[in-house]
């Protein structure tokens, strides 16, 4: 997978297996209409940036908690869909928030805070996926797994889904839901890198095609095409039924 959405904040090396779509805030700023009003989160981020620049770190931290609460669940949803591992998703989200706070000085209100934060989060998730691939090369897979051909991440997701409490569902319904999630995960894993990123961001991240275009440096109409193809492929893979 992987469309790299690096920016000046995370600025790490480009993965060898991914098309580079590096975009900097300077590149992004002209695209956004100046008349678009700032969202509440973006205004809050600007306030925090001012506090940090004035050295009022305690107040900045206090206000930053509001951003954390507002974006935490969405960030976890995105990170978990990328990583399929609850502990890793937890760490990735923490890292993203810490990185955002420590680099808040480089935030520019040309784009919504949500876009900036999501880019940082996705870059962190991509780094973790790459690290996991490197790590998995050294792990000998045992033969007694139920699905020997499944990748380690598939088995991880299956285990995560199996361990997840499913509320009031009866065992049969839980089993069916678990199988459905496993099929969905496998189908999403089969998407092409950019399609997958676009689908993740639009479907699980609740981002508009414009925002996704800003994040990964694509035209809005190109994002729409990727989204459409991804959804169509998923429907085909899942036989029209999720």
């Amino acid at each position: 997978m992987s469309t790299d959405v690096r920016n000046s904040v995370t600025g790490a090396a480009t993965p060898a297996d991914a098309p580079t779509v590096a975009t900097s805030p300077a590149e992004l700023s002209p695209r956004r209409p100046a008349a678009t009003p700032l969202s509440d989160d973006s205004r809050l981020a600007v306030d925090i940036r001012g506090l940090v620049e004035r050295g009022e770190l305690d107040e900045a931290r206090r206000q930053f908690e509001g951003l954390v609460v507002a974006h935490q669940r969405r960030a976890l949803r995105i990170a978990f869909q990328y990583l399929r591992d609850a502990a890793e998703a937890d760490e990735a989200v923490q890292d993203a928030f810490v990185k955002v706070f420590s680099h808040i000085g480089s935030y520019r209100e040309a784009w919504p805070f949500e876009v900036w934060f999501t880019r940082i989060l996705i870059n962190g998730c991509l780094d973790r996926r790459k690290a996991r691939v490197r790590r998995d090369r050294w792990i000998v897979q045992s033969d007694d797994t139920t699905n020997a051909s499944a990748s380690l991440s598939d088995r991880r997701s299956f285990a995560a889904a199996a361990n997840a409490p499913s509320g009031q569902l009866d065992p049969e319904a839980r089993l069916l839901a678990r199988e459905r999630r496993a099929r969905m995960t496998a189908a999403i894993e089969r998407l092409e890198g950019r399609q997958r990123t676009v689908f993740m961001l639009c479907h699980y991240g609740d981002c508009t095609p414009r925002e996704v275009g800003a994040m990964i440096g694509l035209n809005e109409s190109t994002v729409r095409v990727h989204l459409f193809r991804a959804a169509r492929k998923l429907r085909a893979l899942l036989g029209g039924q999720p």
Partner: protein
Amino acid sequence: MIVRAPHLQDDVLYDCYYASRRGDAVDPPSAEHLADCQACATRYAELGTFLNTLSEDADAEVAALFPADRLRAQQQDIARRLELIGRAARVISFPGRAAGHGTSSTQVVRTPVRVARWIAVAAAAGLFVGVAAGTLFNGSARLDATRDARRPGAVASRRVNTPAPARLASSNVEEAVVDMDEMFMSDLETVLDRPHTSELVAFDALTPHVRDARDFPR
């Protein structure tokens, strides 16, 4: 004749779905068509069901994995990590130095260590001084003995220092004593010239010496 609009393409249906999901306005011609065309409305409904199920499953999974208490714990973890930003890194001093810079309790704990260290240093110094003095003493004593034995006037001086009863003895007795002294000194010289290591004595016996050539009658 009324020309019916063609059916909506799939990509338009997806656009309509995501627009309505975000709460944005759906493209008016598409919305109008969906209202009029039963086939497209059915396709749209199927698509919506499929994508909604994907989202609901994902939401349910994440909600189950990250309940409210875990979210609170994560917020606390983030707050804790943010507290560390902007603070100087804590440097943990090396244990050896820490004894000098530590608090009073630390000094109390480390006092026996310091005493033990001084004791070890004193013991090492004493051992060194003892070895050096012993070497020096033995070496000088042996050197004096060798020098005395080899000095030509040593026997004469001894004879001069001989106690009074010896001088009162007859000349034969006196010569015999002198011979005995010379033999003794000769033996002493031989012993001192020989190796002191027992393992080398055998080799020494096989080796010709200068003293043998000197003692051999010409």
